[in-house]
């Protein structure tokens, strides 16, 4: 792998950048792999990377039905945080945040992590009580979190409206300073380049059409490029988890919904941290390119269409203009949709399955991007050892039968 650096940029400038190597290969699939990862999004690529980097398992293929990073990885609002209520969630999201903090260096690929802070607004008495509980729990887990007054919020975010005359005035906020944003494509590309460099085959435009089993054990997958044998199969396909589970003969506690996101035209810096409001239903940050990146809740109905309904956009724009009256004349430039897989307890599934050698990583709902490295790291462990790491053991499928749910509805960015 040719290392990236300011020096390599300068060196390549002398040859008009004609000698840069491929960031990753485009190999044809081999007939058999030790591990096949279904899904070439951030989580799948991270899984492959950590399988190779941490467990010495490099005979791995990542099968992607479209282009790598093209699902929710390339469609989300890039928010990273670990301010979760329950211990189990805090542990895995914090692991992920810590991996993010060293990821650019680890991957030799700048993922543009920007720890500019994530602010969660409180608009009523109930919000304030929830916030107090959450901040204290987060701090108990050794994760940074603090409570801000409206005056402190205004200082941090001068464009925000803290007037008491608002329909739902801002009464306070919690702040995780280590939270922030990263460049979503770069996370996928960085993991892809790192995995490829360690021998992983990334195979794009290869859709899995069946999961082969024999005697309760997985033996491989069928794909649009032909059958591929595998000792183990890890499925990380976000919105399509139920479809893959159906191929393997079981059901998941998951519904797929549209989640829309949008950006404004680029403008000069006006917002220096991530602002989220559950009560008035919107979240917003400003990208390095100058676009305001905006999202809110899911569409109510099940869908695999990667598009949602209009009233969702109107709703969140009303909320945004209410919070930031000076944004009223900025303009929506582009909106799009992804398919999110939601679990009843708003927590993910990172688990062994009823089929031996088959593992599922899904149910991240609206918040999977922030978990990308941690999820891949824990999933790689689960696949390599055939048993969950303590970090993801609580997120096993059997919790739905035992009742040990991890209800994070309050933590999902905006209610779902």
């Amino acid at each position: 792998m040719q290392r990236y650096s300011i020096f390599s940029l300068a060196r390549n400038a002398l040859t008009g950048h004609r000698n840069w190597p491929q960031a990753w290969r485009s190999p044809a699939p081999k007939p058999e792999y030790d591990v096949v990862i279904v899904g070439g999004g951030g989580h799948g690529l991270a899984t492959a990377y950590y399988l190779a980097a941490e467990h010495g398992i490099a005979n791995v293929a990542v099968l992607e039905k479209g282009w790598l990073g093209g699902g929710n990885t390339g469609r989300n609002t890039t928010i990273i945080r670990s301010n979760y209520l329950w211990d189990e969630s805090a542990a895995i999201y914090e692991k992920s945040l810590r991996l993010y903090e060293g990821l650019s260096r680890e991957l030799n690929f700048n993922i543009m992590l920007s720890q500019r802070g994530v602010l969660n607004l409180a608009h009523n008495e109930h919000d304030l009580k929830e916030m107090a509980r959450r901040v204290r729990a987060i701090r108990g887990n050794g994760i940074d979190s603090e409570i801000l007054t409206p005056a402190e919020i205004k200082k941090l975010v001068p464009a925000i409206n803290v007037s008491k005359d608002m329909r739902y005035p801002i009464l306070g906020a919690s702040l995780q300073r280590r939270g922030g944003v990263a460049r979503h494509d770069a996370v996928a590309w960085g993991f892809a380049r790192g995995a490829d460099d360690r021998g992983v085959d990334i195979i794009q435009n290869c859709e899995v059409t069946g999961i082969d089993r024999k005697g309760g054990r997985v033996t491989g997958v069928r794909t649009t490029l032909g059958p591929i044998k595998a000792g183990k199969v890890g499925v990380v396909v976000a919105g399509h988890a139920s479809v893959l589970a159906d191929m393997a003969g079981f059901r998941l506690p998951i519904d797929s919904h549209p989640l829309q996101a949008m950006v404004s035209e680029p403008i000069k810096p006006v917002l220096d941290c991530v602002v989220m409001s559950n009560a008035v239903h919107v979240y917003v940050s400003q990208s390095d390119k100058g676009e305001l990146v905006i999202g809110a809740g899911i569409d109510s109905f099940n869908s695999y269409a990667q598009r949602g309904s209009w009233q969702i956009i109107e709703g969140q724009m009303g909320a945004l203009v209410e919070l930031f009256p000076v944004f009223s004349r900025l303009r929506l430039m582009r909106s799009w949709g992804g398919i999110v897989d939601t679990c009843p307890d708003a927590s993910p599934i990172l688990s062994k399955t009823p089929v031996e050698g088959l593992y599922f990583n899904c149910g991240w709902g609206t918040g999977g991007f922030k978990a990308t490295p941690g999820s891949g790291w824990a999933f790689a462990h689960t696949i390599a050892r055939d048993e969950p790491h303590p970090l993801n053991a609580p997120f096993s499928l059997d919790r739905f039968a035992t009742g040990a749910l991890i209800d994070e509805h309050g933590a999902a960015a905006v209610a779902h």
Partner: protein
Amino acid sequence: MSGPQYRLPAHALTGGRIDRDRPLGFSFNGERFTGYAGDTLASALLAYGSFPLARGFKYHRPRGIFGTGAEEPNALVQLETGGRSQPNLRATQIELYGGLTASSVNAWPSVEFDLMRVNDWLSPIFPSGFYYKTFMGAGIGAGRWWRLFEPFIRRAAGFGRAPAAPDPDRYERMNAHCDVLVVGGGPAGLSAALAAANRGSRVILADEQAEPGGDLLAGDRSIDDAPAMDWVAAALGKLDAAPDVTVLRRTAVAGLYDDNFATAVESVGERFGPGAPEHLPRLRLWRIRARRIVLATGAHERPYAFANNDTPGVMLGNAIRHYAGRYAVAPGRQAVLGTNNDSAYRTALLLAQAGLAVTLADARETPPAALADAARNAGVAVEAGCVVSAVVGGRRVRGAKVGRVLPDGEISGAPRAVEADLVGVSGGWNPALHLASHRGAKPVWNEAQACFAPADLTALGVGAAGAAAGAEILADCLEQGYAAGRDAARAAGRTKRTRKPALKTDDGAAGAPIRPLWAVAERRSGGIGGKAFVDLQNDVTVKDVALAARENYRSVEHLKRYTTLGMGTDQGKTANVTGLALMGMETGRPPDAVGTTTFRPPYTPVPFGALAGRDRGALFDPVRETPMFDWHEANGAVFEDVGQWKRPYAYRRGGEALEAAIDREVRAVRNAAGVMDASTLGKIDLKGPDVVTLLNRVYTNDWETLKVGRARYGLMCHEDGMIFDDGVTARLADDHYLMTTTTGNAATVLGWLEMWLQTEWPELRVFATSVTEAYATATVAGPEARRLVSGLDSDIDWSDEAFPHMAVRTGTVLGAPARVFRVSFSGEASWEINVPAHCGPALWQALIDGGATPYGTEAMHVLRAEKGFIIVGQETDGTVTPHDLGMGWAVSKRKDFIGKRSYKRPDTARPDRKHLVGLLPLDSSTVLPEGGQIVNDPAQEPPVTMLGHVTSSYKSPSLDGGFALALLKNGRNRMGDTVHVLRLDEGADPARVVAPAFYDRDGGRMRG
């Protein structure tokens, strides 16, 4: 700036749409200019010549006006100042008004001299995606360099600025329905609208320009031997007169959604600028539901790339035609036009007629004879087989190079220098597929026309006509438009038959096919110097596309994301197809094998304010007021938002502090009598013989034994066994019950009952009706309460014998029919008096006059916490069972109910789950923090073992000290233990675990 020297004199074929009698003064970058009514800011500025009025996004090279409308990539400006300031508007879409003020964006200190131009000279080390390859901070400390560099990147990025003050303008939304929505008011769109209107359809025609006409606005076309704009005027006359036709001018359709829902933005007051009439909204967002849609959206011209093709003075060929024909502006004296198709010939003719020296380089070896002859006859120098290969100039065009182009796209030999101050380029036409793309239609590559054509969307009720469907001549546009309008009307059920008009057009002899051509610069090593841009707005060059290919970012989405091609505010209207084609050439694939670019809504950017509409400020969300709201407001109430309701939190008397008010209210209830407005509690009237069966299934406890005139408390759970609501239900008659719910869940619980009744238990004969708002509810509580209610004019016997705790009585109070519940959430003897809502204020006033102290929700919270009564959402959070709360007494063992089975699951059956307990701080002056985490060992370093949290905590005037409710792991088995509640920063407060009841544990007071 030396006068509008490029404004053409009045002439039959130029300037048809400006009003020379109405000059308008305006300022740009502080300089004064004059244009005319009918101008855009762009045309008015171009009358002064092509000068730099913008800077490129990345390299900050000077940029001028490139197009005429939504496709414009360069000319972004900041319009006006203060609260009405608007960043990033395209000068080509701003209608000129008197006094307009605009300035350049993204240049410092000025657009004439921009320091960031240094990026252009440093560009060798800033190829596409350079930022992914550096600032990783290797060996220095993760991310440190990036943290240093990021603020610079951020400041350099972006175009204009957000206004510094709130937006003073108003925005409207309008819902509309029609049989046929026609998008685009060019010849095809007008023709379609006429056809549909003739059939009696309800039609909406939306056109984004100040006036419809589309390409005919250039003024050089004729229909039926008369100027084509006469036909346009006649068509509009008919449409405007038809009762069920709405012509929306200045209205850009922004997006198409499922079931033919379209959004469009109409500019209403905007075109008047800050002086717009006060009553007019600035913009109106149309939400249109159409049975059928006709896309007559036209096509966007695309350039081919050559060296320095971003120099001010390089423009789209057809844009030059429109500036001349519509606005009487030709920003040059010597024009060089490069083309690979027929359309540039009309531009050449018009410019020649306007007196410019014109060279037309047609890449085709054999241009169509009729067109070439006509051009030559008009004095145009036609150079066959030639292209514009470069421009020289820098800040404006000072010359062009024209060379012969070989079949493989390379330039043969040294190109010839041509004197020029205006360069037009036409590389072909891209049908405007954006709206079809919103519906998920994958475009189809048309090899013959070298463009993506729209997929067939007939099944979705969407048709395309005219240039949007690939039509190249006017006759086809009119024909296709008519057919599409007729078919749409028919499909919408309008069967009236009409006759198609026969129209004569000036299309002339057949032309010749396009010669596909994407880039002519830098295709061979040692070629012509200078950057050749594919995406002018995002500064993506031909070389950048090659680099993406080399690094294997080869799918269209990787190309876009890696290079940012097509990701700008123009969404790559002039760039995307060229980028795809170049990537195809790099990788040996046809353009559609690279992928088809997916256009996202909106078609053109939409201001947030227009999306928010009226949902802002006081009208952001409904404010629900109880009947007694006015009294509360007039008597010092501090309100809290509970859902959409405004509820009094406490009533401040005089200069009283909030805490003092709450304390006073609590004491009043404990020592005398208080009255609370409980009107917001959900009330559901249940009638029918099977109500008791329903109650047994939705509540955890038994309901068979409830007698008429009595009330009972119940808990409601989901199937997962977790509590989601609680309340008291009373039996008013044999088959008649009244259920109460929490304020926040009133609608949810009614919906829950209806869902089960309709979808699962249709055999149950129960009618459920919300009566929440039919009644005003005043809760009178305290030792003096009986004396107080007994003083009301009423036929109800208030004595304990006649009206015991948990009884319900109906009668009259002050002459009004009343339902009274003897229930207590405060722990005192308490009556909830319900009277018809309109009578609420009178009842309330009578109670106040009788001596009751009004108390708010916070005093109520303190009172109930002292009793250990829970609040759903505070003591519960969706993870709490009745057993967890120690309310196993309310869980029936004899019957099934929703959620019951879940209690047998291993985790739910654990004896050491979190239980509701009371906590008494060892130091009674301490009020434990709500949300405080409970630990055994306060000295443990994080992550600490957290055993639960404080759910409610108050200072009790009755107990004279702090007390709390908490959820504590294994709490019921830890009575008497000392635990510690962590403070926010450091330290912890010790507290003793006690039963969750602090006041009048045997309940004597509320029964008394």
